[in-house]
C-alpha cells in the first residue's frame, strides 16, 4: 500500500464535482483528500487496484491518470541547516535523493561500473555476495587494495543501501563492479596504468568509468582527449575528480587538474553537508574541458575500507566522484542512456546551487531523478 495522486484531467464541472468523487468512493477510496476544483485526489492504494480502477474510469468515459505521491522538502542552503548521517543512510546518499531510487527499485543492476583506483578489498564483509571483477595494471602487484582509497570509492559508487553495522553508503548496490588497480599500494600511478585500465574497462563494455585521481597540472594531457572521446563513442562515460588543490579559506580556489580538465571527461567538485563548496575543491579552468561539470557530496564521507577496518570517513573530490558514478549507473540502468547522452542526463537532473558560483559547482548538486524517462 502506498499513496498515489489520482488526476481526472477534464474541465467539465459535472465530472469534477460529481462523477469523479462518485467513482472514487465506489472503488472504496476516501474523498476527504479529493479536490474538486483541481480534479485531483490522493488515495491509499496499490498499483493493481489503481490499474483496474483506471480501466473502469476509461470504460465510463471518465479517464484518469495516477502517479506515486511525491514528498517535498524545504530546500535549506543556509549554513548549519544541512544534512547529517542517520542510522539508515549517509548524508551523501540523502543529499543525492537515494530514496527516489529505493522507492522504484533502481539499483544499477545490469550496469558495469569500472573504478580505476588502488584496487579492492575483496574480503570486505559488505561485498561477500557481490561478484567483483578485479584486475591489476601495476607491475608486481595484484588487485588487492592495500591503501583503502579504492575500496572507499567502490563502496560509495556500488556499496549497499543497508548494512548490519552502520548506515547504507552505496549509490548503486547491484551494479557490476570492475575494479582496475591503476594506482599502486604506495598510491602512485602513471598514464600507462590508467590508460590500460580505461582500455580494459572498454573491453568489458563498462557504461561508467570512475577515476578518483589526478595530477595538479593545468595543461590538458593529450592522451586523455583521445581516450575520453573514444570512450564516449563506445558508450562509456569517464567521470573524474576535479582535484583537491584549493584552499579556499586562504583565498586559493585551486584549478581542475588532469585528466578531469580534459574535454571529454566529466570533472566533479565536492560539496559539504551544508551544500557549500568544500575548502579543498578545485575551481574550473577557463579552457574548454576545464570546467567543473557537476558537484557531489565529498566532505566526511563514510564508506568501506581495507586492512580489517570496516569503514572510514574521509573527504575529497575523490569521494564526490563515485557519488556521480553511482548516479550514472542508476540512470543508465533505468533508461539505457550511455556516453554523451548519459552525461547530459546527469547534468540536466542536477539541482542548481544558487549560493555557489558555476565555476565551482557546474550544473549543481548531482541528483537521482524523480522520474526516469526511457
Amino acid at each position, binding site marked *: 500500500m502506498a499513496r498515489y495522486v489520482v488526476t481526472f484531467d477534464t474541465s467539465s464541472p459535472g465530472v469534477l464535482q460529481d462523477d469523479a468523487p462518485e467513482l472514487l468512493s465506489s472503488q472504496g477510496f476516501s474523498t476527504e483528500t479529493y479536490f474538486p476544483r483541481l480534479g485531483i485526489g490522493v488515495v491509499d492504494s496499490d498499483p493493481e487496484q489503481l490499474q483496474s480502477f483506471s480501466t473502469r474510469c476509461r470504460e465510463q468515459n471518465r479517464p484518469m491518470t495516477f502517479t506515486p505521491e511525491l514528498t517535498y522538502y524545504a530546500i535549506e542552503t543556509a549554513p548549519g541547516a544541512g544534512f547529517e548521517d542517520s542510522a539508515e543512510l549517509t548524508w551523501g546518499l540523502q543529499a543525492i535523493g537515494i530514496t527516489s531510487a529505493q522507492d522504484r527499485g533502481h539499483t544499477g543492476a545490469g550496469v558495469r561500473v569500472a573504478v580505476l583506483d588502488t584496487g579492492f578489498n575483496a574480503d570486505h564483509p559488505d561485498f561477500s555476495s557481490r561478484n567483483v571483477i578485479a584486475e591489476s595494471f601495476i607491475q608486481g602487484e595484484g588487485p588487492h587494495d592495500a591503501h583503502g582509497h579504492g575500496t572507499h570509492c567502490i563502496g560509495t559508487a556500488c556499496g549497499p543501501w543497508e548494512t548490519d553495522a552502520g548506515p547504507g553508503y552505496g549509490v548503486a548496490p547491484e551494479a557490476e563492479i570492475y575494479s582496475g588497480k591503476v594506482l599502486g599500494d604506495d598510491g602512485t600511478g602513471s598514464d*600507462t596504468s590508467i590508460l590500460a585500465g580505461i582500455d580494459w574497462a572498454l573491453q568489458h563494455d563498462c557504461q561508467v568509468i570512475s577515476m578518483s585521481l589526478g595530477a595538479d597540472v593545468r595543461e590538458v594531457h593529450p592522451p586523455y582527449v583521445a581516450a575520453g572521446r573514444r570512450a564516449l563513442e*563506445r558508450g562509456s562515460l569517464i567521470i573524474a575528480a576535479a582535484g583537491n588543490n584549493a584552499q579556499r579559506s586562504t583565498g586559493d580556489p585551486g584549478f581542475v587538474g588532469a585528466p578531469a580538465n580534459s574535454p571529454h571527461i566529466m570533472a566533479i567538485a565536492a560539496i559539504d553537508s551544508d551544500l557549500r563548496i568544500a575548502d579543498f575543491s578545485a575551481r574550473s579552468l577557463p579552457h574548454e574541458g576545464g570546467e567543473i561539470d557537476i558537484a557531489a557530496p565529498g566532505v566526511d564521507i563514510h564508506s568501506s575500507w581495507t586492512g580489517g577496518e570496516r569503514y572510514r570517513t574521509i573527504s575529497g573530490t575523490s569521494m564526490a566522484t563515485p557519488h556521480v558514478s553511482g548516479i550514472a549507473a542508476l540512470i543508465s540502468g533505468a533508461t539505457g542512456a550511455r556516453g554523451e547522452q548519459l552525461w547530459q542526463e546527469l547534468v540536466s537532473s542536477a539541482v542548481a546551487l544558487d549560493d555557489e558560483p558555476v565555476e565551482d559547482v557546474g550544473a549543481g548538486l548531482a541528483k537521482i531523478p524523480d522520474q526516469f524517462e526511457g
Partner: protein
Amino acid sequence: MSEEEREWIITVDDQHLDQLDQIVAELEKAGLRVESVLYSIGQVTGCTRLAETTKDSATTDPARKRLTVVTGVASVDAVQHYRIQPPDAEIQ
C-alpha cells in the same frame, strides 16, 4: 621502464585505428620498446632509450620526433605520474 629510458604514450589518429598492428611495427623500428597496445582507445605505450650523452627534456628528445613521424601517429606524449594522499590523510 629502466632509468635510461623515457616512457611515452602514442595516440593513433582516427583514420589509422584499423592499422594499429602495422603502426606498432613501425614504432618498434623507430626505436620504441612496446609495453602495451590499447586497442579500445587506439594508443600504444612504450619506452625509448635516452641518448647517452645528452639528457633532453621530453619535448626536445630526438626519439619523440622519430616516433611522431610514423604514419598514422596523432601525438606522442611523455607519460605523466599521479599520486594520491596516504591512507591516513583526511583529504583524499
